[in-house]
């Protein structure tokens, strides 16, 4: 009974595998600040080289977490404790505008890395482009650097820029999940309004209602989603997104203000299969 022996052997191995304990490695690895990051561009002026990093291979339309470090060209060392700010500008045929963005902060004391986000609500095209100007101050001396950056269109829609029924232009972007799972995913959404061409403050006190659907599978939904809301003013919006299987999901949105008025977006019904504002996730 060859089979029998083989299966008995497997059984023994399984038993051993279940009974033997695994010991965790106590040695702490040395933290590499750049682990998982890719430098996608280097902006250079006479004194410094600014290295820009992201977790992906570059920037794209939508929400981008960006890390940077400032290298002194003379000493080849990285500058800590600088004050850094940035300004992305879209150069269109008739006008220029900016986009929602965060402050830039040093990631930790003793860290060479500075971190912030930029939410590009549109992609570049043949005639229109983004540039990024970074201003920084080291020991009360101001420096600046500016370059054109590459912001290609994203595969899936993660940003909606639209005029609400209150005649305010809003930008709503999907931030998390970055790595979606068949699970209840933590969902993070950013909601900004366009105050003027260059100013995009966070909108407070709204609710982002959403309804995930699979158009390829009878447009079914998923249970136990939690609409995205803020925990404190000035913050991003947090919700829970259930995805019951892998594949392509279209997440229909409704932007609702504090007075519970829907400013944009439609509810899914038998006749309405998607909202005019939505995100796409495919995994």
């Amino acid at each position, binding site marked *: 009974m060859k089979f029998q022996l083989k299966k008995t052997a497997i059984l023994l191995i399984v038993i051993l595998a279940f009974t033997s304990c695994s010991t965790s490695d106590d040695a702490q690895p040395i933290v590499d600040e750049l682990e998982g990051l890719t430098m996608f561009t280097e902006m250079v002026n006479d004194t410094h080289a600014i290295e820009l990093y992201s977790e992906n291979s570059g920037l794209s339309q939508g929400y981008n977490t960006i890390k940077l470090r400032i290298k002194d060209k003379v000493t080849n060392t990285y500058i800590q404790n600088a004050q850094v700010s940035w300004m992305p500008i879209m150069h269109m045929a008739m006008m220029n505008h900016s986009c929602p963005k965060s402050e830039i902060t040093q990631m930790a004391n003793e860290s060479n890395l500075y971190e912030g986000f930029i939410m590009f609500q549109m992609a570049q095209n043949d005639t229109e482009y983004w540039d990024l100007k970074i201003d920084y101050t080291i020991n009360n001396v101001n420096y600046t650097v500016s370059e054109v950056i590459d912001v290609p269109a994203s595969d899936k829609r993660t940003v909606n820029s639209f005029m609400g029924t209150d005649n305010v232009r809003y930008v709503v972007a999907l931030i998390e999940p970055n790595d979606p799972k068949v*699970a209840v995913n933590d969902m993070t959404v950013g909601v900004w309004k366009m105050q003027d061409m260059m100013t995009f403050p966070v909108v407070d006190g709204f609710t982002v209602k959403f309804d995930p659907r699979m158009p390829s599978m009878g447009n079914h939904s998923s249970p136990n989603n939690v609409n995205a809301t803020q925990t404190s003013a000035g913050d991003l919006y947090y919700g829970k997104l259930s995805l019951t299987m892998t*594949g392509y999901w279209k997440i229909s949105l409704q932007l609702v203000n504090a007075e519970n008025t829907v400013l944009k977006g439609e509810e899914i019904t038998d006749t309405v299969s998607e909202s005019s504002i939505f995100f796409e996730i495919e995994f």
Partner: protein
Amino acid sequence: MKNILILLVTYLISLWSFSQNKEQDSVKITNLEEIILIGHKAALYEKEIKSLGTVDEFLQQSSKVDMIKRGAYAWEPIINNMATERTLITIDGMRIFGACTDKMDPITSYVEVTNLSEATINSGQEGGLFGSTIGGSIDLKRNKSTFGENQWKYQINSGFETNNSQKIVGASLNYRGKKIYVDTDVMHRNANNYKAGNNSEVLYSQFNKINVSNTIGFKYNDSKLIETSLIYDKATNVGYPALTMDVSLAKSLITSIKYEYKPLNSNIKNWETKLYFNTIEHKMDDTTRPNVPIHMDMPGWSETFGYYSKLNFTKEKHQVLVNLNSFYNKSVAEMTMYPNNPNENIMFMYTWPDVRTFYNGIFINDDFIINNNSTLNVSTSFGSHSNKVASDFGLQSMQIFYPNMEAQKVRFLKSFGTKYKYVKSAFYYSLGMAYSERPPSVSEGYGFYLYNSFDGFDNIGNPNLTNEKAIEASLSFGFEKDRFKVNASTSYFSFFDYIIAITNPVLVPMTIGANGVRVYTALENASIFNSSISSEINLSNAFKYNIQVSYARGKDNNNDNLPFISPLSYTTSVRFNKNQFTTELSLRGNAIQSHYNPEYGEDKTPSYAVISINSGYKFKFQTTSFITKVGIENVLDTYYSTYADWKNIPRMGRNIYINLNISL
């Protein structure tokens, strides 16, 4: 509840009456468990009307067993009107779990008639020998030789059925010696679509199956035996006309090694210990079906390791059986859907999230001989049962519905039963009371969007379910004299926390076209009542008349009907038996299904009756013996379906078969 009380009172009165009358004598225990003999043990297949019928056809003869049919293949046995979750089906005591989320591969589909010698059917809690059950158990016993003078036996089995052009070819080889026996057999079946009455073809009802089995017994002294056993079964291209999907592969490997100790002149009658392993692979897909809204594959895998150690001994007036048993099962099933847009990612989910079930239990049975006429049977079982979701992917999927769900859930199962049997000359009766529990099945606990095409709902498992519990009362009496036999038996099961899928109107179905989503829930109570009466009359030495009538009711907590409960059903036959020739005329039917429940996808299935005739002849040519069986089933080519036919799929129309067994 009222019925239970009446039975309980009757039972207590009878206990009291026998305790007043203690006589010192030994009496042979009358075993009221039902045994259906299959195959060629003691040349019984010669008596079977269809020697190469399927296991399903054989089991169906029992008044306690019926079959849910989703096509021509792999029928799902129901015992006392309870399906797979509430029953226990074993092969020689081995626990085996089907790998299909849609119950398209009951254990009985992985064996062949020629593998088996008999099926032991135990009703209710008595069936708890190898694990927890409420409805009862079927233990399929392997066919094997015994030790003896050196002998080789060869057999060729072949058959043909006209309705679906089923071709059956098989052979077996048996060797026995003083110290060793080896039994091997191979069987192949191939069938096309069958035709229901009026010659209407039932598409996707074909199947193809090959089964190989081997048993080797080795005796190293007069009381010790080692036996290995192997069954390999592979079905391909199996159609399920009642479902939206077919099966491209259903494959099993069932292996065991057994040590048996049978001392002579000892209180220990038999001590049997077995280690076993089985693995099942089941591939369900819809690639053969045209016009599906979306193509999908739903493969499943099930692996089980286990052992049991069963000791039979006598002590004074007690016959005691103790069985320690344990199993570890791994059940995984997936669903992959292929979007019509080829650039889109496939859609994937675990429908069974790699659930590991670990069971350890003990079953003790004592038959106590009170006096010449009466015996008292007491049995009990205890077990620990643990389910663990081993896949993180699967666990996170389930946590969409149950955010606080833990990967592991441990529960304890117990059962207790007692039965009093009384025999006096031609008359006998038995009374039983029992309490039993069962854990939720993998689908009930952890199923993820399992589509039930019968009621049209997606079903979601519920890991928080408590054990289902039942109190059972049974009563059986009979009379046997000369040419006349009659038996009437009834059982009543009162359930607590009855597990059934209940609609959750908030949830949106996943399956295209589904009616909604149901979540497995425990109903506060439910009840199932079974009754049957059977009689056999020997009209003369050659003529025998048989009749069997059964009736059942099932109700949920709102007094609504439970699904898949048999209406009044009957079979009756006249058999003529002379010399080597037998012939039989039989009538089988159901009354109209008036107690149905549309909520569970049922409708009022009309009554039906079908007539079959068959005959067999046995003859010898030199040293070769031939057994031929010829028959016509559904002689009038009636178009019908029964309460147990999935979505009213019609049954087979007129079918002429011929079975031939040649022994060299």
